[in-house]
């Protein structure tokens, strides 16, 4: 089917308008309508994905559209989209999480619903556009388009301190993305003929320019990932965001940073990345350790989960810049797994907050008695995040660590990370789930339908543990390409 990627990008964006109008009549209609749209998008993206999987064509760009000149006065600004093994898993992740977010929002969002679901669909279209852009300017446009919905999500539907968090988020990410843009300008000004097309730029950038541009990209994507000194917006944003939006934030927005590192830093600036791989890896390790250690000290369940995702995104940086196939594939796989697992944890923390009235871990006692179904789901979600080998998260973390050790045996310190992660999750579980309940406290447990909706998160993790090749057969050819450019062949 021609124009399939454009359909995936623009149907949700255009559907935002009817969603808003429908929502003015009755909020629940907006929910149903946007759910229908997102299910269609999920089906289409799975169809696309299956096509790539069957053809084994993850190494090249599939369903390419363009380059269609967009701004003809300036050479190389084109509408140019395509999907390869790096982007395909993230596209289905986006479509999948959007469906779950819309399902999960039904109970939690009761205010200005039309606007909310319209913005959700706008977000979905923009982020799919981001993952499939093959032109740096298009890439940047979608990068910014994702930022505006998130500002409103946090600012309008967030918690008590939402204005501060939304504004901080806006300034951090806008600053980051503008710095990336500066790097892109540099590429454009010094390459002749000037172009923004990623496929045209590969292998044509001199080393000094690669180094300068990769510094800009490092800062910009580093804010999104986030890398440790640039991460301070993230806990605030998460704590204030409503639970479904935290799913978007941790599940998709952070992946933009990871994808940017792989596609731009590794793919376009391979020589600079090879020379400075140790910098990326050290920042990755720093991020992992910082996230893990600070998570141990948290009292707020949601803040802890937010810090876990900092810790887990460090794996992406570590895996990507090992420069070997197992590491890079592991990084992409990790992004997918983390997106799904962290989504479940955020939805659970939102549910617990709603029922128990608090997210303070010491205030949550005896969940196994008061909310047994929730408790079981919390245990399963924690196991996924810990990397217990009943979910595919285990495989991806394992791959990244193996890849890192293959580069330098000292990077084996990364093994400590899963250990710390296990420690703090067990600590939380012991204090909240396994502790004796406070007398007379009664909470409503999840209804079976909500439980089913939550279990949906675990389905792909379960399937991918048994059949990791469903992802890896698509990712591996693409990471093999990256390995070759990284090696300078």
């Amino acid at each position, binding site marked *: 089917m021609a124009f399939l990627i454009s359909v995936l990008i623009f149907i949700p964006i255009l559907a935002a308008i009817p969603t808003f109008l429908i929502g003015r009549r009755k909020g629940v209609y907006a929910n149903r309508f946007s759910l229908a749209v997102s299910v269609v998008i999920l089906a289409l993206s799975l169809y696309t994905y299956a096509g790539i999987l069957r053809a084994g064509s993850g190494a090249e760009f599939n369903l390419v559209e363009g380059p269609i000149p*967009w701004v003809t*006065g*300036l050479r190389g600004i084109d509408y140019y989209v395509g999907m390869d093994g790096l982007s395909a898993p993230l596209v289905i992740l986006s479509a999948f999480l959007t469906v779950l977010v819309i399902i999960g929002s039904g109970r939690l969002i009761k205010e200005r619903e039309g606007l909310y679901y319209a913005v959700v669909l706008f977000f979905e279209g923009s982020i799919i556009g981001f993952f499939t852009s093959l032109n740096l300017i298009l890439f940047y446009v979608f990068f910014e*388009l994702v930022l505006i919905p998130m500002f409103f999500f946090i*600012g*309008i539907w967030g918690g008590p301190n*939402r204005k501060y968090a939304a504004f901080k988020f806006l*300034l951090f990410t806008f600053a980051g993305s503008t710095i990336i843009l500066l790097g892109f*300008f540099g590429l454009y*000004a010094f390459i002749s003929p000037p172009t923004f097309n990623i496929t045209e730029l590969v292998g044509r950038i001199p080393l000094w320019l690669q180094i300068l541009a990769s510094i800009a990209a490092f800062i910009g994507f580093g804010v999104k990932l986030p890398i440790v000194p640039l991460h301070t917006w993230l806990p605030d944003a998460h704590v204030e965001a409503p639970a479904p939006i935290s799913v978007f934030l941790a599940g998709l927005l952070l992946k933009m940073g990871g994808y940017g590192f792989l596609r731009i830093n590794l793919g376009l600036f391979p020589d600079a990345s090879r020379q400075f791989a140790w910098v990326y890896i050290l920042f990755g390790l720093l991020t992992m350790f910082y996230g893990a250690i600070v998570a141990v000290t948290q009292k707020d369940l949601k803040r802890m989960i937010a810090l876990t995702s900092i810790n887990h995104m460090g794996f992406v940086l570590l895996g990507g810049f090992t420069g070997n196939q197992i590491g890079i594939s592991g990084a992409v796989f990790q992004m997918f797994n983390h997106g799904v697992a962290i989504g479940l944890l955020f939805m659970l923390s939102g549910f617990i907050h709603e029922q128990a009235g608090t997210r303070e871990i010491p205030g949550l006692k005896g969940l196994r008695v008061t909310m047994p179904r929730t408790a079981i789901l919390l245990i399963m979600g924690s196991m996924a995040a810990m990397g217990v080998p009943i979910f595919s998260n285990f495989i991806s973390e394992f791959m990244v660590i193996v890849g890192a050790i293959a580069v330098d045996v000292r990077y084996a310190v990364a093994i400590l990370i899963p250990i710390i992660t296990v420690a703090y999750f067990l600590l939380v579980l012991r204090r909240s789930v396994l502790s004796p309940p406070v007398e007379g406290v009664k909470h409503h447990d999840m209804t079976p339908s909500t439980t089913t909706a939550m279990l949906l998160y675990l389905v792909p993790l379960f399937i991918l543990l048994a059949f990791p090749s469903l992802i890896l057969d698509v990712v591996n050819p693409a990471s093999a390409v990256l390995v070759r450019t990284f090696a300078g062949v």
Partner: protein
Amino acid sequence: MDLLSNLIILLAGGALALPGIDFAFKRRVPGGRLPGYVAVAVLVASSLLVGFSATRTLEPAFASNLFRVDLLGVLFSLAVLLVSVFVAIASLDYVERDPNIGVYYSLLIFTALGMVILAFAVDLLVIFVAWELMSLPTYVLAGFSKRDPSSNEASIKYFLVGALGSGLILYAISLTYGLVGSTGLAETFSALTRIISEKELAPLAVLSLALFIGGFGFKMAIVPFHMWIPDAYQGAPTTVSTLLAAGTKKAGFVAAIRVLVIAMTALRADWTITLALLAVLTMTLGNIAALTQRSITRLLAYSSIAQAGFIVIGLAVAPTSSLGLVGALFHVLNHAIMKSAAFIAAAIVIFKTGREDLANFNGLGRRMPFTAFALTISMLALAGVPPLNGFWSKFVLFTAAIQGGLPWLAVAGILNSILSLGYYGWLIKRMYLDDFEGAVRIREPANLSAALGIGLVLIIVIGVYPTPVIELARNAVLST
């Protein structure tokens, strides 16, 4: 007849007839809106005239040593006429009950005429005459709310500074005439190339250059000639502020392009670095000052100063990068649209609530949804968020700066864009995230909203598909 004669006849005729029309029909047409409609019609007709001529081959003007009908002039006059149309439509609501309404529109059209003549003038004396024709009516317009002390103050301050600016320009013109013996820009260009190598005369040429930068700088709102801007914009009726920020300021730029970039290219070593420094200073000071403002008109005034800095980047790198002038022109056009939209949105709020402090914008998203949405889009465009028109012109400007060998100018521009989101984003936060006590839905006035709607559509359409406008700007630069 050529384009310029048509325009002069149309605009001058309209401007002269308006007070008479007002006097004759005041009693018979209820509401006293007739002069407004006539003014809108005259301005729309002239915009269409200019718009259609952009696609045809241009005939030379009647006095081709004084005027040059080229695409640069067409583009500029189109921009300023569009702004005048916005202002005229917005004024239909804003100055509805004023007894001197005929004079108001007449002065507005005289300003437009001055700007149009300035856009085509290639002789220093004609430039000066057009400059005064454009400025004098705006001094009166700024003080149009004659019972409002702050409007009077704005008018006096603007008049004094404007007179100083005109004085500087006139002095620069006499110096140049003394040096080259002619007031034509083409003769100035060739004579200056010769003079620059003579030891005694070169400093005088540089002095006249500095005086030109100063004189035009007052209108262009570049630091350190900016101090009148916030007071004038705040005191003047907000529709007039729109005209000043989006219209006459642009005329300052066209004069600067004609005189500095084209006639004084020989002195470029002197003005490139000066303008680059002024650009950085202007952007930074404008943005930092805007962060601390409490009134919407002052905030927009400082933002306007900051945007002038971005345009000056293009002028500074014009000799070394072919994209410099393209970017400057494109940003001039975009800024005219974005700033008009922002000022008209502010005018709606001031008109309906009578307050201009920023706290009054709290919860505007619910009280005046369309105005708030349009203001948000124009703010994002001003900040340079894609895919809106401001993004593309900043894009061209920064690329030009890197190409032209002044990459630090692009870095400064980028940092300033981030800084500017501090206040644009803050206002958006106020409109959508903050609550207003006792908020009620306010009806938005039709004519002002229509003007705002046109601006909004232009911002988005140029943002999504900028190609035609960039092409136009490029051809305009080639035509000079």
